[in-house]
C-alpha cells in the first residue's frame, strides 16, 4: 500500500521468519522425533537431526505390534492401546462423521429459522446458544458420567456421539445463522408463491445456496470432534470404544513408552485434520469468523 524502505522490508522478512519458525517448531519436532529410535535419541542429547532414520515406529503401530522391526526387537512390553490403533482410528472416524452429520442437520434446521423468523423466543434461543457455547466440558462430564453409568451407556460410541452433538450444536448454529441471514428472503417468497411449503422452500432454495456455509460448518465440526478428548475419555474406558485422543492420552505417564513411539502415533492422529485444513482453509477461515462475530 505504501512504499517501504529496504530496512522496513528486511524487518518484515525477519518477523515473518520468526513467526514461521514458531509455527513449524512443534511440527518439525513431532516429525523428527517419530523417525528415529529411542537409542538414537538417547545417544546424543544435543543433536537436532536424527543419527539414523527409521520407520519402525510407524510399522509397529500399523501392524498392531506384530512387525517389531529393529527398534522393538527386544521390547517385550507394548501398551495394548498401541496395538489398538485401527480400532481407535475407526472409532474416531465414526464419532467425528456422525457428529458432523447430526450437528449440520439439526444446526441447519435451527439456524435457518432463528435467522429468518424473529420471535421473542427465537431470539432467546439464539442467545441461549451463544451462552451455551461457553459451558465448560468438565461441568457436563461429571453429571453425564453419573447418568450414563446409571442407564448403562458407558462404553458405547452412541453415548459419545450424543454428548458431542449436544455440546457442539450451539456452535454449529452460531456459524450457520449469520449466513442464512445474508440470503435474500425474496427467493423463498417467490418459491412459496409457486406453491412450495416453507419446508420445501428451505430444502430446495435456501440449502443449495448455503453450501459454502455448510462446508465451513461441517469441516469445523469434524475437526473439533476429531480432537475432542474429555468426553470420550470419561465415557469410554474399554479399549474397544476408545477414540484416538483417548488412546494417546493413555500413553501419558506410561514409563515404557518413549517419545519416539508417542510422536509417531501423534503424527498419525493429526494427519487427517492437517490434510482437511490444508484443503479447506478458505471455508474454515470463513466459518471461524462467522461463528464469533455476528451470532
Amino acid at each position: 500500500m505504501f512504499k517501504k524502505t529496504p530496512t522496513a522490508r528486511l524487518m518484515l522478512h525477519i518477523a515473518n521468519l520468526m513467526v514461521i519458525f514458531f509455527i513449524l517448531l512443534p511440527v518439525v519436532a513431532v516429525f523428527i522425533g517419530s523417525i528415529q529410535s529411542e537409542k538414537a535419541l538417547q545417544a546424543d542429547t544435543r543433536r537436532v537431526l536424527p543419527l539414523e532414520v527409521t520407520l519402525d515406529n510407524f510399522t509397529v503401530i500399523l501392524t498392531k505390534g506384530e512387525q517389531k522391526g529393529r527398534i522393538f526387537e527386544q521390547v517385550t512390553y507394548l501398551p495394548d492401546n498401541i496395538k489398538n490403533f485401527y480400532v481407535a482410528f475407526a472409532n474416531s472416524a465414526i464419532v467425528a462423521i456422525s457428529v458432523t452429520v447430526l450437528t449440520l442437520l439439526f444446526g441447519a434446521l435451527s439456524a435457518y429459522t432463528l435467522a429468518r423468523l424473529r420471535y421473542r423466543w427465537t431470539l432467546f434461543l439464539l442467545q441461549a446458544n451463544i451462552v451455551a457455547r461457553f459451558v465448560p466440558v468438565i461441568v457436563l462430564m461429571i453429571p453425564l458420567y453419573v447418568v450414563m453409568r446409571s442407564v448403562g451407556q458407558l462404553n458405547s460410541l452412541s453415548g459419545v456421539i450424543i454428548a458431542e452433538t449436544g455440546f457442539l450444536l450451539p456452535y454449529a448454529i452460531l456459524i450457520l445463522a449469520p449466513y442464512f441471514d445474508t440470503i435474500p428472503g425474496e427467493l423463498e417468497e417467490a418459491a412459496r408463491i409457486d406453491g412450495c411449503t416453507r419446508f420445501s422452500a428451505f430444502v430446495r432454495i435456501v440449502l443449495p445456496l448455503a453450501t459454502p456455509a455448510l462446508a465451513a460448518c461441517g469441516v469445523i465440526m469434524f475437526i473439533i470432534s476429531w480432537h475432542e478428548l474429555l468426553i470420550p475419555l470419561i465415557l469410554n474406558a474399554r479399549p474397544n470404544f476408545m477414540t484416538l485422543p483417548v488412546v494417546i492420552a493413555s500413553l501419558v505417564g506410561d514409563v515404557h513408552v518413549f517419545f519416539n513411539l508417542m510422536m509417531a502415533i501423534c503424527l498419525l492422529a493429526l494427519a487427517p485434520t492437517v490434510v482437511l485444513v490444508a484443503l479447506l482453509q478458505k471455508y474454515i477461515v470463513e466459518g471461524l469468523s462467522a461463528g464469533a462475530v455476528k451470532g
Partner: protein
Amino acid sequence: MNRVRIPWFRREMSAGRFALVMNLPTLICLGLVLAYPVGYAAWLSVHRVGLAQLRRGEFAFTGWENYGRVLEDPLFWVAIKNTLVFTVITVGSEIVLAVAIALLINQTSIWTSRITRFLILLPYAIPPICNGLIWSFLYSFQFGFLNRILFSLGLINDPVNWAGNPDTALYAVTVPYIWRTLPFAIILVHAALQGIPRELYEQAAIDGANAWHRFTKITWPMLQQIIAIILILRTAFAFAVFEEILAITQGGPGDATWVAAWYSYKITFAPPNNFGMGSASAFILTLMIAAIALVYLRLIYRRVTL
C-alpha cells in the same frame, strides 16, 4: 364439504409452529446434553456422591458441605490462582501477537508474508492432546527438542528443565496453549483488517500521518470491537484449559500447574472419586465463565437490542 381435504403433512404450517418444529431437535439436544446435565451438576453438588453411593444409587443431601470443603481446600485456591495467571498470560499474549501477526500477513507486497499466511491455520489442525505431547517432547529435560536446538545455536550450555521446574512450569504450559489457539485470534483480526476502508489510510497519508499514527488513529480504533470479542472468548476458554495440562505436567511439579478444570477432573475421577465435591468445584468454574458469557452477550447485542 366440497373442499378437497389436504392431508396434514401437506398442509402449510403457521410460521410460529414451523419455527418450533424446525427447532425441536435442537431444543431436545440442548435440554438433554446441556441444560439437564448443568442442572444435575448443581443437584449433585449439594449431595454426598462417591463411588459407594453411586453403586447404591442413593445420595444423601448435604447442603453446602461440598462447597464448604472445596472453598476450604488450599489446593482449590492454588488451582484458581494458577488458572488466573494462565489466563492473563495466554489471553494477553494472544491479543498482542494476533494483532502483530495479522498486520504482518496483511503485507501483500512481502513474499514471506504469503508463506506465513498459508501456514497460519496449521496449529488449528493439531489435536490438543497431540499438541501437549509434542510440547512435552520439546520441553523434555534430558531428550528435549528445544534444548537440542538451543545447544546447537550455542544459547545454552546445560539442559534447561522447562516444564519440570515449579518456578517455570506454569509459564511453560502457556506457550503450547498460545501456539494452538492463536490462529483463531489472528483470523478474526485479519478479517477485521480487511473491513477497514483503504481510503482512510490514503487520506491519512496525504495528511502526513506516519505509520505509527495510522495504527493508533485508524487501525486500533477499528479493531476494538473484534479485540473485545477475542478477549472474552479466549478468556472463557482459557479458564477451562485441560488437555495441555494433562499431557505436559499432569498438574505438577507439585501443584505448580493445577488449574480449575484439572482440579474438578482429579477430585471426581481419581480416587477417592468425590463426585459431589467435583461437581461443586466445576459449578464454581461454570459460574465464573457464565459471568464472562453474559458480558459477551451484552457486547455483541449492543447494536441489536439496545
